[in-house]
């Protein structure tokens, strides 16, 4: 933290640079623009639907091969689960005396990851009252990308799956022991609503190739989607029933983007694509409505040379062929954040300037509704909204504290001292917050803190937590339930 403050101080030296007065130049340029006519960039306009729906059922040869692989994998998997050498020699498994009941154990999870699947198996979450934390999914730090599971109670670590095809040399020589000096950049992970499937975005070390996989008890499906360096994925999000996975694809940054594309993968492994209704835009992650019938994303709809109303919410029914833009009105500031859905008819926005949560009816976007107060307090760096939307966790910049703010009355509680870039996620029951410190400092590792407790370190191994700090996140933390579901 002190080092970062030093860097800020050095940047402040820029304030001594002499700057020319450009106002006369600005006025001359305006006169030229007026003579030439409007240089306005392209306006928002409908697009033709792009091709790209991928239906594996139309590929009989592939389907037959997949069937053979599935049958073979099922036989192998059955042997593994019956107590084979592989199962007996897993290096780590949770201690059943201390671990909560989990939907799937380490050995079973790992055996499933060894199988190839066309799609996945996932479902709706069970009753939340009995929710207890299960596995945290994180990336390891080795040259070969590796997803590991860490138990939030015991700290037990379990290797789930590795991706040797995405290995790349680390740019910095690593010490043989102690903190690593380089933690690879990996892609987002997201558990399905019932915690039985995990979406995995594997990113090469150079950040160019990105592949989307889904792990479940059916096996490892994918890559379901891929991009090269000309585009990137937003973190995938699951439909409430776990049957669909939506991934937004944008062209690369710092230039015209073209339309954002929403790819929706179904549990059978098929994929269809919906363009966002703009010629040049950038989309955030998809947010599903409670019943899963609609999806929304925050879109910057004219990215390269932004228009005044250059932000909006793109909304569509899942069976539509594109996502239409609901432009912001005077009553809804362009700085509003897409939080989720108030109900199946209204998108839920947070407007920090107005201090309000706002409901935006999808059929009457010109009539936004002020819902309830939004109190940010002093916490400007919002990183994670709690599962019940009553609190958020944030990291205050300089001084670097992990803070919890209660939205209804603005109360703030300081939970821990953390570096500025620590990654944060809520437990599914909203009673704990996990955070990962990947700075090369003594506190490096994975930590967990109850809202009324002290921080405890789950692992001092440097783990790269691969969940983006977007709002609202659902950190890759598997919810599990005791008893029958």
């Amino acid at each position, binding site marked *: 933290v002190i*080092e*970062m403050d*030093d*860097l*800020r101080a*050095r*940047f*402040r*030296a*820029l*304030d*001594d*640079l*002499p*700057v*020319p007065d*450009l*106002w006369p*130049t*600005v006025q001359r*340029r*305006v006169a030229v*623009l*007026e003579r030439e006519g*409007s*240089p*306005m960039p392209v306006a928002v306009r409908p697009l033709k639907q792009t091709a790209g729906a991928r239906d594996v059922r139309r590929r009989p040869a592939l389907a037959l091969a997949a069937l053979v692989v599935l049958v073979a994998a099922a036989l192998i998997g059955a042997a593994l689960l019956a107590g084979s050498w592989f199962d007996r020699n897993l290096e780590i498994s949770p201690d059943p005396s201390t671990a909560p009941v989990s939907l799937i154990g380490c050995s079973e999870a790992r055996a499933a990851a060894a199988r190839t699947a066309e799609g996945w198996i996932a479902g709706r979450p069970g009753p939340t009252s009995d929710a207890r934390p299960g596995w945290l999914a994180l990336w390891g730090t080795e040259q070969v990308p590796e997803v590991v599971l860490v138990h939030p109670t015991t700290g037990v670590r379990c290797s789930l799956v590795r991706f040797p095809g995405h290995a790349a040399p680390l740019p910095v020589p690593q010490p043989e022991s102690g903190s690593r000096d*380089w933690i690879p*950049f990996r892609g*987002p992970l997201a558990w399905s609503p019932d915690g039985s499937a995990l979406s995995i975005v594997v990113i090469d070390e150079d*950040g160019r190739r990105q592949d989307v996989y889904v792990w479940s008890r059916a096996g490892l499906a994918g890559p379901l989607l891929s991009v090269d360096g000309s585009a*990137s994925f*937003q973190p995938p999000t699951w439909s409430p029933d776990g049957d669909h996975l939506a991934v937004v694809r*944008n062209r690369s*940054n*710092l*230039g015209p*983007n073209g339309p954002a594309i929403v790819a929706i993968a179904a549990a059978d492994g098929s994929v269809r694509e919906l363009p966002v209704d703009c010629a040049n835009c*950038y989309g955030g992650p998809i947010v599903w409505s409670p019943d899963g019938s609609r999806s929304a994303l925050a879109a*910057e709809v004219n*990215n*390269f*040379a*932004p*228009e*005044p*109303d250059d932000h909006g919410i793109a909304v569509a029914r899942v069976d539509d062929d594109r996502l239409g833009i609901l432009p912001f009105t005077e009553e809804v*500031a*362009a*700085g509003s954040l897409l939080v989720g859905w108030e109900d199946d008819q209204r998108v839920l926005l947070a407007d920090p300037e107005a201090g309000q949560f706002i409901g935006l009816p999808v059929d009457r976007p010109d009539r936004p509704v002020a819902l309830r107060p939004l109190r940010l307090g002093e916490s*400007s*760096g*919002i990183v994670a909204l709690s599962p019940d939307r009553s609190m958020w966790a944030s990291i205050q*910049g300089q001084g670097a504290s992990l803070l919890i703010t209660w939205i209804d009355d603005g109360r703030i509680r300081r939970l821990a001292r953390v570096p500025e*870039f620590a990654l944060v996620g809520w437990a599914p029951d909203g009673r704990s917050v996990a955070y990962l410190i*990947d700075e090369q400092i003594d506190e490096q590792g994975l930590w967990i803190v109850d809202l009324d407790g002290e921080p405890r370190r789950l692992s001092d191994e440097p783990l790269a937590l691969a969940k*983006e*700090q*977007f*709002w609202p996140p659902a950190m890759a933390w598997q919810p599990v339930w005791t008893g029958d579901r």
Partner: protein
Amino acid sequence: MDAVAVLNNQSSVEAVYRADAERLWRAIFAYAGDADVATDAVAEAYAQVLRRGTAVRDPAAWTWRAAFRIAAGVLKARRSDPPLSATVEHVDRYADPDLLAALRKLPDGQRAAVVLFYYGDLPIAQVAERLGTSRLAVRANLTRGRRRLRELLGDRDG
């Protein structure tokens, strides 16, 4: 827009310019490493915001975003052999020449994220918004950019 509205708009944009343009110019200079690029990008951004009139809701934010994108476009066009203008060494003497030299060795994405975060004092979400990229990418660029700066500037700096 009628004449009165035009004048009002010009006054309000000029007020934003007087309050913010120097800081924006320095940020673009740190990003582009070229005073001419900074001058062109900032002037073009303010000219564009004037042309759009009162329809731009937040001229200050708009001009930062537009100026960075204009500068990025110029740098991209020059990619083969980016010439530094003759003013660079001159203006570096007023600032922190080691820092500016180190910044020039960062890739575009890392440099933009570092400048907007550390000099622009913007949170990660706004850095991402203004660069048209994801917060995950901004965070990665900040982490890598800072590490690279640490290597280039020595242990005493971050």
